[in-house]
């Protein structure tokens, strides 16, 4: 008996599906328009979130590169007072990182102190970076290029590399001497002349005035802090997953040295916040687009039901159970949603692929620079965004279409049949 019912309902479902499919194309214009609306909505959800993801990824990658490092190590007081007093002994750092082992893919130590740079006519405040030119070269020039001259050659190099804008402000140029001034750990002024050995251009022009590069050993001897550094940049395998690296470093450094390893999202909370903000924002965005879409969907289905009141009444009078009427209309809307989704996903995929090489947005470069973005936007389509867009559309679409379907299933057959058209 129960097997029979199942068979019957199975056959019923099959015929319901056929009827739903045919009903869909009775008014092909309306269906076509609805499919267009859904697909454009889905396209917008996926494509826009791909652009936003691309933007965040860009901000993150640049931010992490610029910090630099996935994890940074400082003297505990350095973030509040970035002076030479709060330095770290290089040999302790080296030993500690060796202990952290495989989790560290590469690292370097640098000096980072506020300083004054002066030419014959101007002086400016900036941050002086004492770097190991060989170790850091690739990271420094990921977002910058050397315009003139050459970068520092070795840790003993006696030159200074400044940004193009700074060189304009100082009215100096390649090969001329400038004077840098800072303070040693005794708070006495230290200063020396250096020749400008290179001029760089950064993607973010503001950096050009903020940072100047000197060789590590030269800066150490100027500041009288031999063997000391102010910042250690440590790179792991993947900046999204740092738990292993961080816990390794924390166990080595925290306990016996008081040095403080911090992940990139702690060193720069803006970057950490950007990711969380974007995750929430993408979901909101999808829901908002869907809300606009849902009115169109509900309207279409309500109209489809109202048009067919007498027809539904006849089917009910012929013995079709209300559940089947409900099912038929629901299947209809799921078909509609499915077609729209398929087309929308295809459109979104095509548009993402077509701009995979990046969109030039340099027209608004200055604003982007403030947000820490480059001038080329690369879309990033994440499967979780695609899945959430599709799931939201199907689930919420089904909920929206349930109302007219429920309504139709509960018509009184006599009234429905005699309803004047």
């Amino acid at each position, binding site marked *: 008996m129960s097997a029979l019912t199942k068979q019957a309902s199975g056959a019923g479902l099959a015929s319901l599906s056929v009827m739903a499919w045919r009903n869909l194309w009775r008014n092909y214009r309306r269906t076509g328009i609805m499919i267009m609306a859904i697909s454009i909505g889905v396209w917008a959800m996926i494509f826009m979130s791909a652009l936003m993801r691309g933007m965040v990824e860009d901000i993150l990658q640049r931010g992490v590169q610029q910090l630099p490092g996935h994890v940074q190590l400082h003297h505990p007081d350095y973030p509040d007072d970035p002076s030479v007093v709060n330095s770290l002994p290089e040999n302790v750092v080296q030993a500690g990182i060796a202990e952290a082992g495989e989790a560290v893919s590469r690292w370097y130590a640098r000096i980072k102190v*506020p*300083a*004054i740079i*002066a*030419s*014959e*006519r*101007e*002086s400016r*405040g900036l941050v002086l970076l004492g770097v190991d030119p060989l170790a850091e070269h690739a990271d420094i020039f990921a977002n910058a290029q050397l315009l003139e001259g050459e970068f520092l050659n070795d840790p003993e190099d*006696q030159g200074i590399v400044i940004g193009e804008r700074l060189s304009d402000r100082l009215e100096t140029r390649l090969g*001329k*001497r*400038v*004077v840098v*001034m*800072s*303070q040693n750990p005794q*708070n*006495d*002024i*230290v*200063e*020396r*002349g*250096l*020749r400008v050995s290179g001029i760089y251009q950064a993607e973010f022009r503001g950096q050009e005035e903020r940072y100047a590069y000197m060789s590590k050993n030269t800066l150490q001897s100027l500041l009288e802090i031999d063997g000391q550094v102010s910042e250690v940049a440590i790179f792991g395998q993947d900046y999204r997953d740092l738990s292993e690296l961080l816990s390794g470093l924390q166990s080595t450094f925290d306990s016996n040295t008081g040095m403080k390893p911090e992940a990139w999202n702690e060193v720069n909370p803006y970057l950490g916040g950007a990711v969380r903000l974007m995750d929430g924002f993408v979901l909101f965005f999808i829901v908002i687009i869907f809300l606009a879409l849902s009115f169109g969907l509900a309207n279409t289905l309500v109209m489809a039901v109202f048009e067919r009141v007498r027809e539904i009444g006849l089917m009910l009078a012929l013995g079709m159970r209300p559940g089947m009427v409900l099912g038929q209309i629901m299947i209809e809307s799921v078909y509609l949603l499915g077609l729209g989704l398929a087309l929308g996903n295809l459109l979104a995929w095509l548009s993402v692929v077509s701009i995979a090489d990046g969109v030039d947005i340099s027209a608004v470069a200055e604003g982007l620079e403030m947000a820490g973005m480059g001038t080329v936007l690369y879309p990033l389509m994440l499967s979780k965004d695609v899945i959430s867009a599709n799931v939201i559309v199907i689930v919420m679409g089904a909920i929206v279409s349930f109302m007219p379907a429920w309504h139709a299933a509960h018509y009184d057959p006599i009234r429905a049949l005699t309803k004047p058209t």
Partner: protein
Amino acid sequence: MCIEIVNKLSGIRMLFAAIALLGASGTSVASENPDANQILRSAIDNWRGITSVSEMTMTINRPTWQRAMSLKAWTQGDKFSLVRLTAPVKDAGASTLINDKQMWSYAPKINRIIKIPASMMGQSWMGSDFSNKDIGRSTEILEQYNHTLLRSVQSEGHQVHTIVSIPHEDSPVVWGKEVLMIRDDYVILEHQYWDQDGVLVKRLKTMEVSEMGGRIIARRVRMSKLEEPEHWTEVLHHYVEFDVALPPHTFTLSNLRNPR
């Protein structure tokens, strides 16, 4: 904000130096054709250890305004100086103390002593054409430059030596070269600052030489910026006394705040 990074013999220090040097001139005028280092070295040697007390007026001139202030200064050798404003009344009491490379400033209005940090060394001293650095500098000029005697000419009864000083590669000096004109009695007549492209940027010029406190000194000197016409600061000495016995607390922070 314009920086002037100059050597020890410049700015207010140079004024003090000029004052002090002159008195000692009679004792060690060098040979007929002294070399440049020797001229500077004997100038500095003569000055070392000498104390002075002086009063002067500093006039700051700009295209649209001019202002004058009165100063009193105490110096001892090339390491210690104390300058205190006496007029106008609203600034009176503001003082600067220099102890070798360190520099403090006292502002009576807020009753605070500030140690001038590196970042402020380039800023103007009391709004004049002298920077804090001009005033505070006391490193050895002899060590940071190569000096050459360009020529010695006879002028107005004196021999005037022109010395070209080119800073060493790593000296904290922005200038391409400095040119000093020093009279045989060690009055510095002119000090020029040339940039690295060979353009004269500023000049400290002695406008008036006279005898004060028993020595011949540059009584009126003017620092002018050649790229900005009408921008100059002039210092005129009214009273100078040398070899004064200064109490040991003269160059202390407590004396900076509470003059005794």
